[in-house]
């Protein structure tokens, strides 16, 4: 959270001043870094100007958002036997998560096993704010959530009043978040795909 506050304070300073600060933190960097900084400075200045117009914001309780798209990154410890169960289940599913579609605000998610199967990384890109997103999972795919998350230490269950605290406790907010199309929600991309198809059909008919 302090990062966000720091970011905002940074916005109030002039870009020149911030670039001066950046030069100072890069003063003791490896030679490669200093060269890269000098080469990148012109582009960096214009990016910094653009960035002020499209800066990341808070996604609500925790995490950051750019435009409509937010990030959620959780690292949790496996419960005994959890890694084995989860891996076998993910392999059986072989990339099919029709449950993900039901949520309707989920862009992507990855499941990564860490540190000799003792820890787990779950990272997702989604639309909107943190609280409604978690609520969506709880109402639309509660069983899938419990099947996956019982693999972790201390998972209280998706229907537990403590579930949001558990997630927030294990979430690490990103300090940088780039989205190529920040205004494109999952719903809007669905609409655009239909528009694109309709236009093609229309053009076929007139040709």
């Amino acid at each position, binding site marked *: 959270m302090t990062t966000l506050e720091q*970011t905002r304070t940074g916005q109030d300073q002039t870009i020149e001043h911030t670039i001066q600060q950046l030069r100072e933190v890069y003063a003791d960097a490896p030679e490669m870094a200093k060269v890269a900084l000098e080469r990148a400075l012109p582009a960096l200045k214009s990016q910094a100007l653009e960035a002020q117009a499209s800066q990341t914001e808070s996604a609500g309780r925790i995490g950051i958002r750019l435009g409509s798209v937010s990030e959620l990154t959780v690292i949790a410890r496996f419960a005994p036997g959890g890694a084995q169960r989860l891996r076998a289940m993910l392999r059986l599913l072989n990339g099919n998560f029709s449950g993900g579609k039901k949520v309707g605000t989920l862009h992507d998610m990855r499941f990564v096993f860490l540190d000799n199967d003792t820890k787990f990384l779950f990272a997702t890109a989604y639309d909107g704010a943190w609280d409604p997103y978690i609520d969506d999972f709880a109402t639309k795919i509660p069983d899938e959530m419990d099947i996956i998350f019982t693999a972790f230490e201390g998972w209280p269950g998706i229907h537990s009043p403590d579930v949001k605290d558990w997630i927030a406790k294990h979430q690490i907010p990103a300090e940088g978040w780039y989205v190529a199309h920040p205004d494109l929600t999952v719903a809007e991309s669905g609409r655009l795909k239909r528009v694109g198809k309709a236009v093609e059909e229309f053009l076929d008919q007139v040709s």
Partner: protein
Amino acid sequence: MATQTATADTAQQSLTVEQKLQKMRELYADAPELGKAALKNGLAMLTQELAAEGHAQTAGRIGARQGKVSELTVFLPFVKGGAKRLRGLLQLLAGNFRAADAVGTVHDMRFVFVDNDTKLLFATAYDGDFDPYIEDFAAKIPNAMDLWLCNFEGYPGMRNPSAAADWIAKHQIAAEAWYVNSPNLTATETRRLEGVGTAVDQLLDKIA
């Protein structure tokens, strides 16, 4: 590792849905009560998912791909002072990294400081395969890449793209599972569709 996974997947593909469900029940026999109950309640959806054709693919050298969209997840060790520099850089960019627009195949990227600022978790979604993706970065935004990656141990520099790709692959951990809502929508196709959408809106405005 990738080969093992592929073999395991092929073997599992030949199982019937009923056999897969049976395996799942065995797996969850010693799960916490919550997990067992969830398995029972979620059986209908699971059966559907198990019956569907497999979607998991690889992104070439390393990483998972679904349709046209791939994932790359790395944990990079900071050099001394590296975390402070990268944080300063990200703050200047207001947490954003618009230089990546020039690459054209990036969907999203996150920068997460972990383990007391000793490591960075970098995770991205992109189009296509691992090697061409890294080559693209090296060709299009080498400066921007050096500027942030120089903060990590052993980074060889983007002017040496094949060494840089090896270095990234060495720190990469392939996702065990990867879900993409629109697996066939590349970043390029998204831009085209946004253009079509705007044109259609304007056309409809004119007719109205």
